[in-house]
């Protein structure tokens, strides 16, 4: 049974039957042309390109991650080294200070009596100076009173 006969059994519309016949002829022509064309190379090339691009991107990401990891590790090591150096310096400074403190304490204890005496003398001298200065700088209005005090003192 031909296609036309089959279609005639199912399709009573001649326009529809004709359109379906044209459709089939069109698909046949396209398929025959496409089937006769060699396209393995195109397919391979396209997929190879995609594969290469995927690999390149993957390698770039992997290299980036690795470099980032290495940099991070190096950075941490550097920070740790600096921190260790600072700690060592602080330790040395503390030890040095601890070594210096007893000697200074001894000197202070040896010199303490003379220093206290000297400080007391200095204070007394300073007060005497201030007292005499104040007494000299008495305002003019108070001069008779001051004179009286001097007179009483002498008397």
């Amino acid at each position, binding site marked *: 049974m031909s296609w036309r006969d089959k279609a005639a059994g199912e399709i009573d519309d001649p326009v529809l039957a004709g359109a379906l016949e044209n459709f089939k002829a069109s698909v046949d*022509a396209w398929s025959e042309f*496409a089937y006769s064309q060699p396209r393995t190379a195109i397919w391979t090339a396209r997929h190879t390109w995609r594969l290469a691009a995927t690999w390149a991107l993957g390698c770039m990401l992997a290299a980036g991650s690795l470099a980032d990891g290495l940099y991070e590790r190096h950075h941490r090591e550097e920070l740790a080294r600096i921190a260790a150096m600072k700690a060592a310096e602080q330790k040395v400074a503390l030890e040095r200070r601890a070594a210096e403190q007893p000697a200074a304490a001894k000197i202070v204890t040896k010199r303490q009596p003379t220093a206290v005496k000297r400080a007391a003398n200095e204070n007394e001298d300073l007060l005497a100076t201030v007292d005499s200065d104040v007494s000299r700088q008495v305002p003019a209005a108070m001069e008779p009173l001051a004179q009286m005090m001097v007179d009483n003192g002498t008397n």
Partner: protein
Amino acid sequence: MQTSTKVMAAGTAVKPMTVEAAEEIAAQDFASIVESHRPQIFRFLLASLRDVDLAETLTQECFLKAHRNWNSFRGDSSAMTWLMRIAINLQKDHWRNRRLQFWRHTQANAIGVDEASDWLPNGERSAEQQIVAREQVAQVWKAVDGLSARQRTVFLLRYVEDRELSEIAKATGLSEGTVKAHLSRALSRVRAELRGIR
């Protein structure tokens, strides 16, 4: 060397056949199947997908799968129906995978309806008839585009591949009644498109 002997009903042994010889015959059978059915499988996939590269790839996959399972082919249906069933399943798998790959455009390489309708055999037609035929083909493509996957498969098997309803039923795993129903809906859609009704 392994040998297999065919024994007739009466018990008389006939010419023994080696396993290698049996495999060679099977390979020749398969090669002739590929030669005779490959263009039809390709045409069906091309019409379904409108993508030449994809149709070619799926055709290759179809015959690869058929070759792997050639020994299990019992011959319950014709080789063509069996191959068509494999092709339909491959197509389904392809669309399922494409749906999962949501970042890709589903019909990246498929050509448009207008481009597909450019293909017409020259024949003995006037220029006017050629134009009318092209318009009709474009309208049918447009209608096919709007069909569901199952309707499209049934429609193409019937009106492009000239398959009988029973063969379509076997290839698609549907009953003949369901095939008829799908065909009827598909034809209504095509008819409506030809009349310019949406």
